[in-house]
């Protein structure tokens, strides 16, 4: 969705990126930023529907959620958190490079680095988590098998796994869209579109990327660390 907010300004034939409906470029920049923030408010409510459901079910089925949480591998969750934080830093640095008027190769370097980190996140998630979960038959809807040791908590464990896959799946979808936006930005940067006077597309895409990072900052403890890890010993 946010792609269009970027394209709005990005794809305008005018080389300065100025659109006719505005009075001046400042007004246009402010509109772009405000638009992205409102979009992020929408996103908060979009994920909010899931977080609300999660909160309620967690209160109702806590023992099951603890079992389910312990099925996840903390080390991958933590690693991915670090990967995303790194990518947020590189994203911020990409914007800063434009702001202080660094060369386009510097901007591209940071953007590509951000993309690599984003792809690394998705790769780890896919290869070492979702794929393993599939092999272990704990993906709801794809041959979920109740384990005897869960006892009567088993249905709730499946419920937890539903949440795990819906929430991380939606998050991953946002990452994929983010990678697409970054690819567009790399293209724009290569054409030398960003200067210290004009970098709003970078900035508002950065807002989106940081937002996706924040979602993960909450998903990590809420999904991986329920009920602590001391009992299971990791």
């Amino acid at each position: 969705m946010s792609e269009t907010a970027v394209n709005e300004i990005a794809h305008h034939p005018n080389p300065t990126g100025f659109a006719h409906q505005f009075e001046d470029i400042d007004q246009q920049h402010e509109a772009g930023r405000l638009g992205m923030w409102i979009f992020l408010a929408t996103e908060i409510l979009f994920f909010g529907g899931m977080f609300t459901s999660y909160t309620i079910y967690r209160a109702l089925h806590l023992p099951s959620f603890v079992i389910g949480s312990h099925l996840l591998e903390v080390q991958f969750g933590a690693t991915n958190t670090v990967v995303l934080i790194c990518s947020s830093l590189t994203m911020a640095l990409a914007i800063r490079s434009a702001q202080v008027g660094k060369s386009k190769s510097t901007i591209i370097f940071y953007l590509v680095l951000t993309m690599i980190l984003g792809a690394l996140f998705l790769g780890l998630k896919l290869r070492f988590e979702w794929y393993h979960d599939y092999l272990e038959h704990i993906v709801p809807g794809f041959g979920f098998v109740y384990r005897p040791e869960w006892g009567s908590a088993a249905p709730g464990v499946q419920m937890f796994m539903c949440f795990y896959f819906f929430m991380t799946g939606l998050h991953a979808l946002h990452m994929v869209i983010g990678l697409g936006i970054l690819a567009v930005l790399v293209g724009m940067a290569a054409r030398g579109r960003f200067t210290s006077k004009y970098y709003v597309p970078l900035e508002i895409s950065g807002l989106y990327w940081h937002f996706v990072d924040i979602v993960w900052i909450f998903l990590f403890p809420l999904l991986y660390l329920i009920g602590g890890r001391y009992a299971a010993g990791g």
Partner: protein
Amino acid sequence: MAEHGAHGAHTEFTEHIVPLKVYVGVFLALLIGTALTTGVAYIDLGRWNTVAALAIAVVKMLFVVLFFMHVKYNPGLTRIIIVGAFFWLGIMICFSMADELTRSWEYNPASWTGMILPYLSRFLL
């Protein structure tokens, strides 16, 4: 209100260049936060484990929002939007919980407080 419309108010978003030191500092703080939240999970704090995890997550979020997303340098409208969105999320959570966690009250009207406290403590565990 002054005699001008939106065009007069150009200063809502200032274009602030954040020093490199701040970015690196925030980055380190976020890494420490991640280590902390993972580490705390291995210590038995009872119900405070959840509180600690959420508190650390909120602090991390604030770092990202204030510095990476420049909200510290963008007064006014941006903050209203963020606070508003979380307020609406709060509405959704609180009012749904108001139903979901009080359903059994009707059968035991004498012990309404007796019913809600165990639920709250289970949620915080």
